[in-house]
């Protein structure tokens, strides 16, 4: 059997794959955070809760309405996105003129309320969500065995990140977003409904998180706690990457996922803190973040 650094190749690649998958989620979630922060200047602490909501909507759709995974991939982001848009319209938008820390505190409270509600209704234990039949099983790649669903997750996350990037960089709507990020007043003076744009952006971010949640459901269990522990790691990812660019957020997400996977191979006890350690190092060496534009 082939080994690499003394570890069986299959096991090594297996851990790297897990790292890549975690990285996919880090990338999608930091993408959502970066999109929201870029325009609204709000750190959406509720992002993890919105991710959790996505997974739960998929679960509940299946349990009560028999709606399968594929429809859930569309419905859950829509539902959670609309919910997010509603929150933005009615409450979050009142905080834009204030110190940005209030936005963080508000979304923190929102996260607590959402998580608390689901914890109360469903307990802290996770519930399983089965892999959709079309993606069950695995493929033998020769050097390792790739579970089909895992491969699907990585592929979809890449497509989602690319798609979001295209939306922002190459479309008219994206031009509105980019311009509004630079100068909201002038963009409104041109006749563009920036308040609506802000609502849309927050809804989009929430929908992205929910989409990631549906993707996550068959891999990690569906639990009310799945969001908040994840979001703190994503914050560290965002500090490492810097909030300057969408691309930066995505690349950093994948990189840190892989770093975590590698650590799991060689030094498993440190695997859940390696992202934070990297964050500490980056803070010493390059405080603005690897791709950061602002100090």
């Amino acid at each position, binding site marked *: 059997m082939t080994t690499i650094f003394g570890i069986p190749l299959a096991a090594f690649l297996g851990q790297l794959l897990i790292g890549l998958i975690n990285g996919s989620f880090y990338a999608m979630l930091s993408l959502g955070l970066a999109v929201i922060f870029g325009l609204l200047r709000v750190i959406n602490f509720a992002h993890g809760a919105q991710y959790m909501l996505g997974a739960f909507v998929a679960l509940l759709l299946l349990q009560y309405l028999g709606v399968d995974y594929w429809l859930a991939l569309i419905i859950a982001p829509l539902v959670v996105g609309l919910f997010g848009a509603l929150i933005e319209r009615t409450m979050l938008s009142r905080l834009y003129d204030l110190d940005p820390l209030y936005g963080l505190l508000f979304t923190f409270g929102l996260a607590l309320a959402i998580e608390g509600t689901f914890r109360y209704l469903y307990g802290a234990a996770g519930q399983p969500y089965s892999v959709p039949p079309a993606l069950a099983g695995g493929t033998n790649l020769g050097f390792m065995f790739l579970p089909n669903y895992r491969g699907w997750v990585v592929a979809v996350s890449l497509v989602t990140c690319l798609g979001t990037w295209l939306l922002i960089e190459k479309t008219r709507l994206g*031009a509105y977003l980019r311009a509004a990020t*630079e100068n909201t*007043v*002038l*963009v409104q003076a*041109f*006749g*563009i409904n920036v308040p609506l744009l802000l609502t849309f952006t927050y809804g989009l971010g929430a929908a992205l998180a929910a989409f990631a949640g549906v993707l996550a459901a068959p891999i990690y269990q569906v639990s009310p706690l799945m969001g908040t522990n994840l979001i703190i790691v994503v914050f560290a990812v965002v500090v490492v990457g810097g909030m300057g660019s969408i691309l930066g957020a995505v690349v950093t997400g994948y990189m840190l996922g892989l770093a975590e996977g590698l650590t799991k191979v060689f030094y498993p006890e440190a695997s859940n803190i390696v992202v934070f350690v990297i964050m500490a190092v980056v803070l010493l060496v390059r405080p603005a973040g690897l791709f950061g534009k602002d100090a």
Partner: protein
Amino acid sequence: MGALLQVANLHAWYGESHVLHGVDMTVGEGETITILGRNGVGKTTTLRTIMGIIRERKGEIRFGGRDMLPVPLHRTAHAGIGFVPEERGIFASLTVEENLLLPPVVAGGGMPLEEIYDLFPNLLERRTSQGTKLSGGEQQMLAMARILRTGVRLLILDEPTEGLAPVIVQRIGEVLQKLKARGMTVLLVEQNFRFASKIADRFYLMDHGRMVADFPVAELPDRMTMLHKVLGV
């Protein structure tokens, strides 16, 4: 030719600071009006208050007969008013063409894209460059061009020639003459009165947050001494 823009007893505040003290002004359809005055008297503030960027305001602003005070900022352009700010406002994260296409078309009668590129060939040439890579003069052209596409009836310009070379200033003058010929109404703030005197129909002189004089361009030579005194030029 009725008054397209009617401003009466306009007051405005920046927070606690009372900056406009009862501005009165009319702009007839098709006219080109210039506001003169020293720095800090409220010229830019007047433009921004009319546009609706400054919301702490009282008084009367009527555009085409319509009361503009309750209109939210993002609906003002749709009423037919276009704004070119002093700092030009070219977006760094957009290409030249994206900048050009950004303001939505609010009415018919705007210049089609091909005509804009004919008028401003540099913009065609540089259309995929990043917006802020253009020179100051080119950015000013872009800032004006993007409004021309939208079909607004009143064009508000804040110090369009500031900091630009004479050759560009001349170009801007030509563009404004062309617009005037097409019936565009223009309201501008300008320090350079040689430039202004070539295109304006009427002048307002502003001091301490209100208008202190208004006269047609024909009377400009007679008013020069007074202007020298007030403007300290």
